[in-house]
């Protein structure tokens, strides 16, 4: 089945949970990624229970706020 991830088409074998999709996509910061599914943000605690189906659109959003650390 075909879904869209971050604007690009992706082939996924069967409906998967968001957690599994995150894992499959080697998402950086998997514990912190924010997910929008078909225009709605999914609460983190619901990732396991949320299934991604044919034609769905998924956006992974990442925290970006680093850059100025004196080591």
């Amino acid at each position, binding site marked *: 089945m075909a879904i869209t991830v*971050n*604007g690009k088409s992706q082939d996924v074998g069967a409906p998967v949970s968001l957690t599994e999709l995150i894992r499959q996509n080697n998402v950086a*910061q998997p*514990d*912190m990624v*924010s997910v*929008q599914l078909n*225009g*709605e*943000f999914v*609460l*983190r605690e619901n990732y396991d229970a949320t299934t991604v189906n044919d034609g769905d659109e998924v*956006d992974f*959003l*990442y*925290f*970006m*706020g*680093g*850059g*100025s*650390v*004196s*080591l």
Partner: protein
Amino acid sequence: MDFNEEQIQRYSRHILLQDVGVEGQEKICNARVLIVGAGGLGAPIAFYLAAAGIGTIGLIDGDTVDLSNLQRQIIHFTEDVNKPKVLSAKEKIERLNPDVKVITYHKLFTSENAFDIIKDYDFVVDGTDNFPVKFLINDACVLAGKPFSHGGILRFDGQTLTYKPGTACYRCLFHAPPPPGAVPTCSQAGVLGAIAGMLGTIQAAEVLKYFTGAGDLLTNRLLSFNAKSMEFRTINVHPNSNCPVCGKHPTVTTLIDYEQAVCEIKR
């Protein structure tokens, strides 16, 4: 507002634009913008807003200039090392454009002073490099009904969102800051210097568009880019009914000073 001959020359390239013109330049010259952070993002933001003739620029930053900043914080020069960033920035802004009034706050932006500081400005720009303050800026602006530009960079990536009351805020997208230690801060210390320029200048353009009314703001849109591939994309978003600060059942009704990650405290 009557422009003198020097101002006509200085702002001629704005005046020529149909979307700006004399009226737009007047609005820019009467605008008051607060930039939180005089570092990587704050530097190009401050430069471009000063060049444009923004009437009052407020700069808040508690840091002094460090040698490691100069790779990207282009408003600070080698001789400014150890100088408070807000003073170093003020000097350059005044040399670039003496029309601009610069107000400096050599301190941290905190839950105690946030409302008091932002009340004197029409627009706030997030030029910070840490999550606690990004969330503070968001919460303060949402609660005060103040438009602002969110911006963040990381290695080769940048993202920005513009907020106006009623549109998606930062917390609509990111519920709460990552707990300190969850995102290894030290590994996030690397950033390609020019990325700060890429993102900061986009934020400055949003500010100018806000005041002149030109084009469409990045409201309900997160602009995200990866400089390695030079791919830019906009992600459509909208106010989240579960948002802790602007949603149906807000849980954030006062300002919070989240804990800083350990590396950040060392600064």
